[in-house]
């Protein structure tokens, strides 16, 4: 689809925000607190921070909540009544302030939740999300989007991508139908495209490797000491998976209160030792090394093999939060 370019004034951003709220949309945007920056529901433009590299958490919870009701039930001695936990009625959500890597992550995520078994709970939510991303002007040593076919100004996944220009105003690239709809609803705020080039305003993210090459190399790397070596310090927590914008492993859990209850889907992580444990006591992935291998291979080999899209967008969140400082980039580049 043709990308339409516009200029949006710095001062118009707030108006755009207010219009979105005014139209009954729920807006999630980065909010800063002492030790973290999170995508949170915001009511006023002033609550939003623009001083962030990436948020601590990923935006995925908007479409894949960390705990989601699948259905509820009521049981009597004779009958079982199941009530679908439909997501049809979820409100429209604007994700404001996603980075290009965040937006790109929605592509593999949507892949996972479709295929032969489309997940309507996910799809309903995804259908109501508008992704208003902001290009990256800065990066750090954990960023490697350019190594996984992304870039600090990548438009893939976003509905509109804003890039701050030297004037303080923004280039708005309108990528999708949804984006165009938003522009149409706020026509007065979008002006003719600026002259200024986008590229100089983007961060320079070093390219460490090439996704396709890595994919090829990983084909024959199942048995390799690198997995144990690089995961030795791994504590077996799930922080990497939970902050990852692509990771979507989940568990299904029931909660019961007397004769009523719910079945829930909740986040899970391949890093947990119990993830694959059989009731018999057998565990196909016995060590943290095997689990780390699964994480890497899943993202850089299995997913691209299956659906042509890598399972990593190079945001670097997992490495930033890892309590044992295990660095995904380090593992991948050491291969």
């Amino acid at each position, binding site marked *: 689809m043709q990308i339409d370019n516009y200029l949006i004034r710095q001062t118009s951003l707030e108006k755009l925000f207010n219009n979105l709220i005014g139209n009954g949309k729920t807006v999630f945007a980065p909010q800063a607190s002492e030790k973290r920056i999170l995508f949170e529901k915001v009511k006023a433009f002033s609550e939003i921070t623009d001083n962030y590299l990436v948020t601590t958490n990923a935006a995925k919870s908007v479409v894949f909540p960390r705990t989601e009701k699948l259905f509820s039930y009521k049981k009597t001695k004779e009958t*079982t009544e*199941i009530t679908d936990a439909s997501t049809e009625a979820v409100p429209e959500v604007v994700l404001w302030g996603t980075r290009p890597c965040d937006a790109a992550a929605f592509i593999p995520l949507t892949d996972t939740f479709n295929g032969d078994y489309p997940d*309507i709970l996910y799809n309903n939510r995804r259908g109501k999300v508008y992704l208003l991303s902001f290009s990256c002007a800065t990066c750090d040593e954990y960023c490697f989007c350019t190594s996984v076919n992304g870039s600090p100004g990548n438009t893939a996944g976003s509905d509109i991508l804003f890039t701050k220009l030297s004037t303080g105003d923004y280039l708005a690239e309108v990528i999708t139908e949804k984006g165009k709809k938003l522009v149409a609803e706020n026509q007065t705020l979008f002006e003719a495209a600026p002259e200024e080039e986008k590229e100089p305003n983007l961060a320079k993210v070093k390219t460490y490797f090439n996704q396709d090459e890595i994919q090829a190399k990983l084909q024959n790397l199942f048995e390799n000491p690198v997995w144990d070596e690089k995961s030795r310090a791994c504590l077996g927590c799930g922080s990497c998976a939970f902050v990852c914008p692509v990771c*979507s492993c989940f568990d299904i859990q029931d*909660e019961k209160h007397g004769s009523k209850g719910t079945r829930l889907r909740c986040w899970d992580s391949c890093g947990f030792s119990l993830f694959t444990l*059989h*009731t018999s006591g057998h565990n196909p992935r016995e060590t943290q090394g095997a689990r780390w291998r699964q994480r890497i291979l899943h993202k850089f080999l299995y997913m691209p093999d299956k659906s042509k899209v890598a399972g990593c967008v190079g945001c670097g969140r997992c490495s930033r939060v890892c309590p044992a400082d295990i660095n995904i980039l380090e593992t991948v580049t050491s291969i």
Partner: protein
Amino acid sequence: MNNPNIYIPYLMRIEKITQEAPGVKTFRLKFENKQEAEEFEFKAGQFGEYSIVGVGESTFCIASSPTRKGYIECTFRQVGRVTSALASAEEGDVIGFRGPYGNTFPIDEWKGKNLVFIAGGIALPPMRCVIWNALDLRENFEDITIVYGARTVADLVYKHELEEWGNRPDIKLVTTVDPGGETPDWKGEIGFVPSVLEKVAPSAENTIAIVCGPPIMIKFTFPVLEKLGFADHNIYTTLENRMKCGFGKCGRCNVGEKYVCIDGPVFSGEELKLLPAEY
């Protein structure tokens, strides 16, 4: 019901409960909803998610044959929370079922061939489905041999059916128990499945071998089959990794690139050799 929400189970009423062995039960399940019953189809080798609402779901294969319409059966051992809750269910209770999931045994391709079924312990159920399927289409196949072993005589499941198969002239049934697991009046073999198989030595000529059992049994059975001249592509088995969703999303049943729930659970020997040892 055909609910677009893929997580919503069918409601099925337990029609009959059979105690197969200590801690092992078979449920015969019937759809609560007539329309669902009519629309439901599955093939040999497929599995489902059985659940008690409020407790959770558990994965087992469908143990009845697709040729027997109107109901499905499952056989399970009581080990964890869900299987314990299932085990305490009574006839007439309603449980949940999602499925069928996974691939199937290519039974149509086996027309005109000999079949050897090799199973150990609680792994007979996935086999039972395909055995009955083959028996119900008996004329499609040549010789049928079943080698089945368990730890003890008490642990053999489907005892009544074993008796029935044993009495049929068109099946060769060999049952065995581990040394020490026999009773005084045990008439079958004594020994582990792989060695009994070696003794029975079915011809590999025009024969398909279907193997189901605990990892240790599989590990020792494959070399025997190889020795007997079975080509990898004529051997089939099923894998039982831990699963939650059953349709390739929850992420825990990967064996390498394959999802056991959608790419399996049925794998040929040929495919299995390409998989990393992650099962």
